[in-house]
């Protein structure tokens, strides 16, 4: 059964800290891994990773994929209160339809 596991489940940090969120997966027919940020409403897209070892970066956020060890990390440097959210990892696998399997998410709270 396809499985996506995120850790930690929740995290509280002080503004300015650096955090690393983890996502491991067991998925057949892997195609890509996606990170989403969810604040109060719908998830918003952050990154899509398909190749091992190539870092994707957007401002203070970056992510990398290891297809051999089947995991990805999402780094956030110099955290701000606006980074407080649930971060969802999802894996896209091919088959009869293009579907995403989501992890349970990591709830990040950034305090002053």
């Amino acid at each position, binding site marked *: 059964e396809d499985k996506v596991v995120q850790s930690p489940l929740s995290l509280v940090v002080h503004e300015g800290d650096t955090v690393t969120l983890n996502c491991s997966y067991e998925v057949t027919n892997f195609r890509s891994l996606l990170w989403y940020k969810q604040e109060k*409403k*719908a*998830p918003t897209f952050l990154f*899509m990773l398909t190749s091992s070892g190539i870092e994707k970066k957007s401002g203070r956020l970056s992510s990398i994929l290891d297809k051999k060890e089947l995991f990805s990390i999402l780094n956030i440097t110099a955290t701000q209160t606006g980074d407080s959210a649930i971060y969802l990892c999802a894996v*896209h696998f091919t088959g009869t339809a293009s579907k*995403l399997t*989501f*992890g349970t*998410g990591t*709830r990040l709270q950034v305090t002053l």
Partner: protein
Amino acid sequence: NAGVTQTPKFRILKIGQSMTLQCTQDMNHNYMYWYRQDPGMGLKLIYYSVGAGITDKGEVPNGYNVSRSTTEDFPLRLELAAPSQTSVYFCASSYGAWRGNTGELFFGEGSRLTVL
């Protein structure tokens, strides 16, 4: 650009009632999905569709039905509401494989359903 539009945003149902969550997208996406998200949890796939007239079950289809008569619309029907269906429901869409589908989903704003 409207994207994915869901209605209603909130609804309270009594046990045994029925209702339909509406979803429409204006991006000409072939693939559409319904997910539910319980508190503190990730998203679970209920049903999906790869095109008009084609639907299939996801991980948690029991208690739900869908139809896809047009590319734009993908309504989700709850026939006999139960407290276990209290959740936030997200409709999403994506490009089909012919567009080099990367898997990125475009989400609606969500519908919060409470069954009492």
